């Protein structure tokens, strides 16, 4: 993942020479009036489809299906029917969207928390504990990032449902026990954790490794155990990185369709799965998607706007203040 480089806005760029790095020249050109206008235009264009979706979600079914959302401004007619359809119990599959909203919350919170805890511990160990083969373990973790999750799905599903058994000349050895958790939300948490860990460990290891060596060594000399160092020194300093990772993971799990669909038991499927089903068996009710999509966007938008600061700061800020 490329980390954006944010330069303080107060730096004057006008005097930059021709040999200035491309990034700075780009930043300079964006801070001119034309540059700003261009950015605003791009942002507006970017937002138009979402805005159209919002407008559509308040239009009656027949209008949505026969005319474009922009005709709303010449022939306005507003209805809450789409939201009523989606939220009421006659919405679809004899179940309402609200239940699936809660399912998604139930999946997302643990599936964000668990991988971050494990990744933080692993990152600390890989960065500051010396043991044999440490670099190889890290290389192995990074290498796992290239495995597409679509390929790992069926094997993982088999492992969780049937366990891993090896039969050698008539004797069956159980390598992995059969947890039989196919009717529990735990399998979704495990799947999300597995798929999130490589990137999370990679990001946090790099961040935690960059902490000043003096701090950790001083704590060690004062007699702190690894656990104390981790909890008292590393964790507080790593908050920006943890926060940004949490946002990434939260948004990923919240918007996830595939993992929830494959691993989730039938009545614990996520909201995205329900969204896919709102259209009806023959695709005749797709007007409901407009309202459904907006309900599913509320929480990610809230999280993003309220934690936006961390989103940027976590990726750029140094951990130690002077």
């Amino acid at each position, binding site marked *: 993942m490329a980390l954006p480089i944010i330069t303080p806005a107060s730096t004057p760029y006008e005097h930059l020479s021709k040999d200035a790095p491309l990034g700075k020249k780009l930043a300079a050109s964006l801070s001119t009036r034309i540059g700003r206008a261009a950015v605003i235009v791009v942002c507006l264009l970017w937002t138009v489809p979402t805005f159209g979706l919002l407008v559509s979600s308040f239009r009656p079914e027949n209008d949505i299906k026969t005319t474009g959302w922009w005709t709303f401004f010449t022939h306005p007619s507003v209805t809450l029917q789409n939201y009523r359809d989606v939220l*009421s119990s006659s919405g679809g599959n004899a179940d*309402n969207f*609200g239940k699936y909203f809660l399912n998604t919350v139930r999946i997302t919170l643990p599936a964000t928390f668990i991988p971050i805890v494990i990744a933080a511990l692993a990152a600390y160990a890989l960065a500051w504990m010396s043991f044999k083969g440490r670099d190889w373990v890290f290389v192995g973790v990074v290498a796992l990032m290239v495995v597409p999750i679509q390929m790992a799905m069926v094997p993982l599903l088999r492992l969780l449902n049937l366990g891993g058994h090896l039969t050698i000349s008539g004797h069956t050895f159980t390598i992995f026990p059969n947890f039989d958790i196919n009717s529990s939300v735990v399998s979704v948490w495990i799947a999300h954790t597995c798929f999130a860990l490589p990137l999370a460990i990679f990001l946090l290891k790099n961040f935690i490794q960059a902490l000043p060596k003096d701090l950790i060594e001083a704590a060690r000399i004062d007699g702190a155990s690894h656990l104390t160092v981790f909890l008292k020194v590393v964790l507080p300093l790593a*908050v920006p990185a943890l926060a940004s990772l949490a946002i990434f993971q939260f948004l990923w799990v919240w918007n996830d369709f595939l993992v929830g669909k494959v691993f989730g038991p039938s009545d614990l499927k996520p909201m995205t799965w329900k969204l896919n089903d709102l259209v009806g068996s023959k695709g005749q009710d797709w007007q409901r998607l407009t309202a459904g999509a907006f309900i599913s966007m509320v929480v990610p938008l809230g999280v993003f706007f309220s934690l936006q600061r961390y989103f940027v700061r976590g990726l750029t800020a140094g951990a130690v203040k002077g």
Partner: protein
Amino acid sequence: MKHRMRVAGLVAATALMAAACGSDSKSATSSTAAPVTTAAAGAATTVAGTDTTAAGSATTAGGAAPTSLAGHACDGSLKGKTVTITSSIRDTEAEKLVSSWKPFEDCTGVTIKHTGSATFEDDIKTSVQGGNPPDLAIVPQPGLLATLVKSGKVVARDDLKDSVTTNNGSSWVGYGTVDGKFYAPPVGANLKSLVWYNPALFASKGYTIPASFADLITLSDKIVADGGKPWCAGIESGNATGWPATDWLEEVVLSNDGPQVYDDWISNKVAFNDSKIAKDLDLVGSILKNEKYIYGGVQSIATTAFGDATIANGLIDGKCYMYQMANFFSNNFPAGTTLGPDGKVSTFPFPTINPANAGAIEGGGEFVAALRDAPEVLAVQDYTTSVDFANRRAALGGWFTSNKNIDVSAYADPFEKGLAEQLKAATVFRFDASDLMPSAVGSGAEWKQLTAWITGQSTKDTLDTIQAAWPS
């Protein structure tokens, strides 16, 4: 400063989430008056509470409590057992399905949990491979059934052969049979050899229902001469774009060359690029590739969804006069549209091309396969294919069955009653050919190539490419 910001942010996020959850659960409970967490309870309340038509017919169909259903005594002996079912059936149709199982649940005490999925065909393969298949699966294609049987998980039901033969006919036994063993009895069916039209508009313009394919072309030309567009067409369907075109071709092959060629075509004894098939495809092209005939133009066909509102509204508003589509298109009309010869829209049988094959009908269907060998699973399978179930489901509307022993008066809608009579009168019934062909052809090359054919590819190139995709 930083710390305070974080707390504020988290509080804001939590509040937002709480607000969203709060309003959701409130609206949910106020409308259902039942705990939202139990799927079955929620479903039952929904049908009874909000869908008035479903509730009305449910009470009429209920009657006195039966002592046994589909050969299973109503003694509550299956109490505490749960059977999971997955299918591609969703939304209101799924609600009706669930409420049709209700009497059997009340009778035997079994709990039935149904999940409909938009991506059922992929999901079922993943869950069978991954080791957590549902107990029952309602499979719409015999080809997919064969794939599932190869996994070794499907329970053979040779004991149901006789009842399926009496109820549906021996050809339906054939569709549920893989390698000589019978696995999956039929549930629902659909008729494909139909053309949708607007009866009132036809009457006012003095058009009559065409009896032969030649009449159909004459009528189309007449509509063009009167300044109208005779046909609506759309073959877009996401990953499955092109399948409505396969129906067109199948109907023409069946009606032009007869059931024998149709069967040989499925087994590739008659090659896909045979001159007979090429002639039939050109017949399809005489309508679908005729710029004067198609509302919106030939190029719009590939990008118009088969269930698009422009087609449903086009028929109602008279922007186009005819649309070839199976009976399940009835679900795509705006709520309150009356169906049948006296309604706003109706169907006529796909006109006969060769008089020798008059009365041949193409259709499709769904089959219920058991993936776990347990008494409660097989009991629900028995009920799902039974006459009791068919009567009850038919009463809720928007559904059709190949079960001939159904009480035709059970159909809530005169439209479906008419179809049932049409099916009874059919001399030849053939299952959707593309669903029976190997999936590399029937749900692969044929869809893609016919889409390319609509947008301009030649008949020869199209058929040669499809034939080349046939697994050797």
